[in-house]
């Protein structure tokens, strides 16, 4: 079943001068058709300015199409009466955790969303507990968010979204400001939500290693979807990705370089395990 659907979605940023006359129009998203099924883990890659974030903001009705339409969980985002339902279905996580946390205490922050939705108090506490546990932050429930590391703060933000029981979470570069451990924690939490709770995840990132577990990768350039496929399919096109200002995971580059030096390795190796197996075959250590 498709959870999100965009049909010929285009969006223009309109620049106006001081008198309100149109000075210029920039087409940030250009005729995009994507479909996301419930339970999928989707990664979106693209250079700065490729339209990824603009697209993401359409998925929970922060922006509305200039042309075309966006459907989330059976509702058209342009229909103003469904905006709140859509934001409940599709939660959003941004780059800077400091901008997303408002509570003085972790559990209070996480409870803010459901409280705002008018959920009965008892159920709020239940939801807070579930969500904090699902991101591994339950033991910090009484802490002040200021005392947490970047990765922990970001996981609290994610718990805050989960507490609203969304069907889908859109994460716009959630790890860009984090240290290696924080990045690992956030990605692990996202994968667990997807695999265990079956929450649909749409992850925007500049870290190629974070997308190898995605079901599907969508690559954007100049507002258009230019590539789409499994991580292996997409990362097999190393030269094309470089042209798009992108990259491939380190192990994929390593395999690619080894191939250039004459080793017969398959394209699109994504993990150290795969590289090891391929090398073992080559060395006659394995059939």
């Amino acid at each position, binding site marked *: 079943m498709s959870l999100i659907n965009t049909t010929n979605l285009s969006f223009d940023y309109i620049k106006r001068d001081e008198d309100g006359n149109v000075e210029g129009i920039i087409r940030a998203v250009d005729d995009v058709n994507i479909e996301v099924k419930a339970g999928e883990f989707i990664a979106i890659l693209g*250079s700065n300015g*490729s339209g990824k974030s603009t697209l993401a903001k359409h998925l929970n009705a922060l922006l509305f199409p200039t042309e075309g339409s966006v459907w989330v969980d059976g509702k058209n985002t342009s229909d103003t009466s469904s905006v709140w339902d859509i934001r409940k279905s599709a939660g959003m996580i941004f780059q800077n955790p400091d901008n997303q946390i408002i509570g003085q205490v972790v559990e209070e922050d996480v409870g803010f969303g459901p409280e705002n939705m008018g959920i009965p108090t008892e159920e709020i506490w239940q939801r807070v507990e579930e969500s904090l546990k699902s991101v591994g932050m339950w033991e910090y429930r009484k802490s002040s968010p200021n005392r947490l*590391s970047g990765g922990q703060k970001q996981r609290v933000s994610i718990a805050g979204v989960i507490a609203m029981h969304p069907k889908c979470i859109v994460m716009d570069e959630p790890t860009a*400001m984090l240290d290696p*451990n924080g990045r690992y924690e956030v990605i692990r939490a996202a994968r667990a939500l997807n695999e265990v709770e079956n929450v649909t995840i749409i992850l925007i990132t*500049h870290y190629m290693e974070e997308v190898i577990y995605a079901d599907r990768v969508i690559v954007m350039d100049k507002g258009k979807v230019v590539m789409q496929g499994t991580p292996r399919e997409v990362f097999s096109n190393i030269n094309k990705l470089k042209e798009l200002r992108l990259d491939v995971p380190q192990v994929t580059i*390593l395999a690619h370089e080894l191939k250039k030096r004459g080793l017969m390795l398959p394209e699109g190796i994504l993990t150290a395990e795969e590289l090891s197996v391929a090398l073992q075959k080559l060395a006659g250590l394995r059939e």
Partner: protein
Amino acid sequence: MSLIFNHVSYEYDSNSSVKSYALKDINLTIEDGGFYGLIGHTGSGKSTLVQHMNGLLHPTSGEVYYDGADIADKDYDLRALRSKVGLVFQYPEHQLFEATVFEDVCFGPKNMGLSKNEAELRAFTALEQVGMPHDLFYSSPFDLSGGQKRRAAIAGVLAMKPKILVLDEPTAGLDPKGRDDILDQISRLHEEENMSIVLVSHSMEDVANYVDRILVMNRGELVYNDVPKAVFAHIHELEGMGLAAPQVTYIMNKLRDDGFNVGLGATTIDEACDNIMKALGR
């Protein structure tokens, strides 16, 4: 002209009964023409350390010397120091404010009291150094792409002709090409202008590929100060500090575990390739 930290500690709330240290007994020399990577988890004291480098913070004990003078001295000229030790903050593009890129870059040198001509000459050179296309010199900073804004902001610091350039995560949020471009430019400044560079980074790969020495901060202490290979050999200790080794290091460890006789010291793709070819006898 080196920058020396001598037993530098910095305490928060020095009045309260519980002492909490942001920096603890740091001894460090930033040598002329060195290229340093500064790594550490969030809250490890990296930013506090960096703010001591140009006197934005002063030690609660110990001294910081630049060119032989204690920068906390009452009559020390901090303004002059800040043009010698240029600090590029995280997301520096948020600090762009003039109507054009060129005017923005002129701001620093003008503020140093240089003539209009000299300031403009420096702005021009700085913008060229960061590879800003000429046709964008007079655009509004807000019309530039993310990577270009970042360059404009770095140029603003370069225009003061610093001897030491300190950059706090200059590639955060940039796409891979933008990241490589900025790091290549910084590397060129290091080579061509013999500028000392301190690069604060969360990317172990970037640090492994570019710097000569790595400084590792953990809980306010400087735990390692060594060449990348030596630092990344402490892979388990680094993980314990919320850090990591470059991914190729993990790949090589995996190959070793699976029976390949590969050398483990590789921290870059090229070295890893060499080691694998060697292990396969090719």
